[in-house]
C-alpha cells in the first residue's frame, strides 16, 4: 500500500513539477497547483478506480488569485482520478450568467455538480432544480440557505478566521505584556457577507478578552487597495500594536505601505494563506507574523467527495456509509513554527 502510495505521489508530483517548469518556461505566469493541493484518496478502497463519474463544475471567472486557485485545484484533482470526467463551465460575471451556464451543464446530465456560486442565496433555486432532477449538488464555499438545495456543502470558516486571528493577536499581546493595545483591521470588500462574518468573529473574540478594534479601513481584495487602506490606517493611528489584514493578496499592498511609511512597531496577521504570505512568515523579516487559513484546497476536496457521492461510497475514516451533508474546514493559524508544513497548500 505504502509503496503504491509513494509511487503515485512521486509520479503525480513529478508530472506536476515538470508541467510547472514547462509552463514557467513558456508563459511565465501560469501556476500549476502543487501536488499537495490535490491528493488521491490514500487509504481503503476509495482510491481504486470505480464507476465512471462525470462531474459538472462551475466557478466565477473572478480576477483574484484565490478563485483562480479554486478552479486550478478542481481541474488538477479531477485529472488525478482515472474514473472522473470533469465538464467545466465558466460562471461569467454575475449570478444570472452563472445560472445560464449551469443550465447548459444540467442538459449534459452529469452525475454530480460541483459549483462555487457567485452568491448562495441567488443560486439556491438552481440547487433545488438540479437536486429535483436527480443530480446531487456539491456547494463549494458559499452556502445555500435551503438544505434541500444541496447534497453536500463544503466551505471555509469565515467567522472562525476572525476568531483565530483575534486569538493569536491577544496571545501575542499578552506575551509581550502590552496593556491597552491599539488594534487595526483591514478587511476586504465590506458589503460581502463573508467579510462581515470575518469581522464579527474578530470583534466578538476581542470583546470577550476585553479588547477592541481601534480603526478598520476596508480594501477591495487587491494589492493597490490594500496599500491605500493601510496608508489611511497609519495616518489615523500614530502607534499600532497589531493589525489583522483579511486577505493575503491585498496584504502584498499592505506590506508595501508598511515599508513606504516605515512603520514597524506592530505585528500583522494575514488571511487565506497565500504562498507569498507563508514565505514571508517563514523568513520572519516583515511585520507579517502569522496568517489564518481559508484554503482553496477545498476545491480539491469537493471534487474527491463528489466522486465518492457519484460512486455511492462513504469517507473511509468515518463509520458512515455515505459522505456527510456538511463540512466546514477549520481555520488554522500559520506561524513561523509550522509554515513549512503548510507551504505546499499555499496558492
Amino acid at each position, binding site marked *: 500500500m505504502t509503496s503504491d502510495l509513494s509511487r503515485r505521489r512521486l509520479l503525480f508530483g513529478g508530472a506536476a513539477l515538470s508541467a510547472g517548469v514547462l509552463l514557467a518556461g513558456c*508563459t*511565465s*505566469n*501560469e*501556476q500549476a497547483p502543487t501536488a499537495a493541493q490535490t491528493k488521491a484518496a490514500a487509504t481503503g478502497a476509495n482510491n481504486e478506480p470505480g464507476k465512471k463519474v462525470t462531474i459538472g463544475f462551475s466557478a466565477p*471567472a*473572478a*480576477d*483574484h*488569485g484565490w*478563485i*483562480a486557485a479554486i478552479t486550478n485545484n478542481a481541474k488538477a484533482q479531477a485529472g488525478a482520478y482515472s474514473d472522473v470526467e470533469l465538464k467545466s463551465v465558466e460562471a461569467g460575471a454575475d449570478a444570472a450568467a452563472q445560472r445560464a451556464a449551469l443550465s447548459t451543464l444540467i442538459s449534459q446530465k452529469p452525475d454530480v455538480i460541483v459549483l462555487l456560486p457567485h452568491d448562495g442565496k441567488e443560486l439556491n433555486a438552481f440547487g433545488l432544480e438540479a437536486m429535483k432532477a436527480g443530480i446531487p449538488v456539491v456547494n463549494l464555499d458559499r452556502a445555500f440557505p435551503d438544505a434541500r438545495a444541496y447534497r453536500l456543502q463544503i466551505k471555509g470558516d469565515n467567522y472562525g478566521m476572525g476568531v483565530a486571528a483575534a486569538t493569536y493577536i491577544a496571545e501575542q499581546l499578552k506575551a509581550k505584556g502590552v496593556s491597552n493595545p491599539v488594534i487595526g483591521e483591514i478587511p476586504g470588500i*465590506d458589503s460581502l457577507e463573508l467579510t462581515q462574518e470575518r469581522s464579527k468573529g474578530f470583534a466578538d473574540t476581542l470583546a470577550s478578552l476585553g479588547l477592541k478594534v*481601534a*480603526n*478598520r*479601513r*476596508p480594501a*477591495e*481584495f*487587491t*494589492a*493597490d*487597495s*490594500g*496599500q*491605500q487602506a493601510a*496608508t*489611511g*490606517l*497609519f*495616518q*489615523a493611528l*500614530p502607534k499600532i500594536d497589531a493589525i489583522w489584514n483579511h486577505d493575503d*493578496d491585498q496584504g*502584498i*499592498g499592505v*506590506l*508595501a*505601505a508598511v*515599508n*513606504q511609511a516605515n512603520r514597524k512597531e506592530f505585528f500583522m496577521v494575514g488571511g487565506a494563506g497565500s504562498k*507569498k504570505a507563508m514565505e514571508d512568515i517563514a523568513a520572519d523579516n516583515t511585520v507579517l507574523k502569522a496568517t489564518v487559513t481559508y484554503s482553496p484546497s477545498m476545491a480539491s476536496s469537493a471534487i474527491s467527495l463528489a466522486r465518492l457521492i457519484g460512486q455511492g461510497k462513504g469517507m473511509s475514516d468515518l463509520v458512515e456509509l455515505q459522505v456527510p451533508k456538511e463540512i466546514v474546514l477549520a481555520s488554522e493559524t500559520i506561524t513561523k513554527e509550522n509554515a513549512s508544513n503548510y507551504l505546499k497548500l499555499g496558492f
Partner: protein
Amino acid sequence: MSDTTPTAAPERAAGLPAQSPPVDPAETAKADTSARLSWWRGDGGEGAKRNIGLLATLVVLVVIGILTRPDLYGDASWVWGNTLTILKLASVVGVVTVGMTFVIIGGGIDLSVGAIVALAGVWCTTLATQSYGAGGMIFSALTVGLAVGVVNGLLISYGRLVPFIATLAMMVAARGLAAEISDKQTQVSNDTFINGIASTNVLGIPLLVYILAAVVLAGWVLLNRTTFGRRTVAVGGNPEAARLAGINVRRHTVLLYALSGLCCGIAAIMLTAQATSAQAAMANLYELDAIAAAIIGGTLLSGGRGTIIGSLLGVIIFSTITNLFAINGLSTEAQNMVKGGIIVAAVLVQQVQFRSLSQFLARNRATTT
C-alpha cells in the same frame, strides 16, 4: 463627436460666445493676453474664481480635521507627514485626471482609464517583462497605455463610435486582457527600482508627488500655452467650427485619447510601485474618480472648458476627504455618500453660475442630436 450636424452648429456656437475657436490672429492674441492675466487659466477670471472656491473647500476640510482630531493636528511633524500622505494618495488619480481633463475639454469622455492602468500595470509586471529590468517595465507600461489610447481615439474619430460606447467597450476588454495576461494572479514586482519609486523621498518630499507635479505642469503648459491646448478647447466647444477653421478634428481627437492613455501608463507605473504588484482588478473605479475630480474642478462635461489646476484641486479634495474619514475612523460608505454630495453640489453650482437652465437644456439637446 467630430461629426456634429451642421444644423446644430449655430446653436452650439450661440451657447458659447466666449469660447469660439481662435480663428483669426486677433482672437488668438486676445486669448493669449487673458491667459497671461490669470496664471490659473486664461478664461478671463472665471476659472480663478472657481479655484479660490475649491481652495476654500479644502481649508474647510482641514479645519474639520483640526476640530475632530486636535490630538493629531497638534503634532507638527504628523501634520507635515499627513499632508505628504494626502498628496501621495492623490498622485496616481491626479495623473489620470490630467489626461481625463484634456479628453473632456475636447468634448469626449474616457471610461477606460482604470482598465488601462490595470492592463499597463499587469503588462509591466509580467515575469517576461520584469526580466528586462526597470527600463523594460517602464517602456512597456507607457507603450501599452499609449497604444490603448490611440485605439480609443481611432474608434471614436474614424470609427465614428460615441466616446461613451467606445471607451466602455475598452474598459471591459482591457480588464479581460489584463486578467488573461496575469492568469488572474496578483503579480508581484521584484524590481527594486520600480518599487523604489514609491518609497523614495527627494528633499523630504516623496518622488510620487514630484511626478504628479511634473505631469500637472506639463498639462498646464500644454493646455494654456500651446496651439494644441487652444485647439482642444476649440474642438470641445464647437467641433464643426473648429473643422471649418482648419483644425484636423479627427487627428486631434486621436491625440487627446492617446494623451489620456499615456497618463494611464504613467499612473500604472506609480500604482505598481506603490502596491509592489499589479493585478487585473487594480485601479478599480478610477474612471469615476477622475471624471468626478475634473467636474468639481470646473471642467464642463459637454466640453469646451476646464482647467488643469481645478482638476488637481478636485483630486486633492477627494483625497483629503478620504483622509478625514480615515483619521476619524468613519466608514467608507459614509465617505462615498459625502463624495456623491460634493459632486452634485459642484455641478449644480456650475450650472447656476455659468448658464441659465434653458440655455443648458438647449445645449444638451444640441449635443445629443
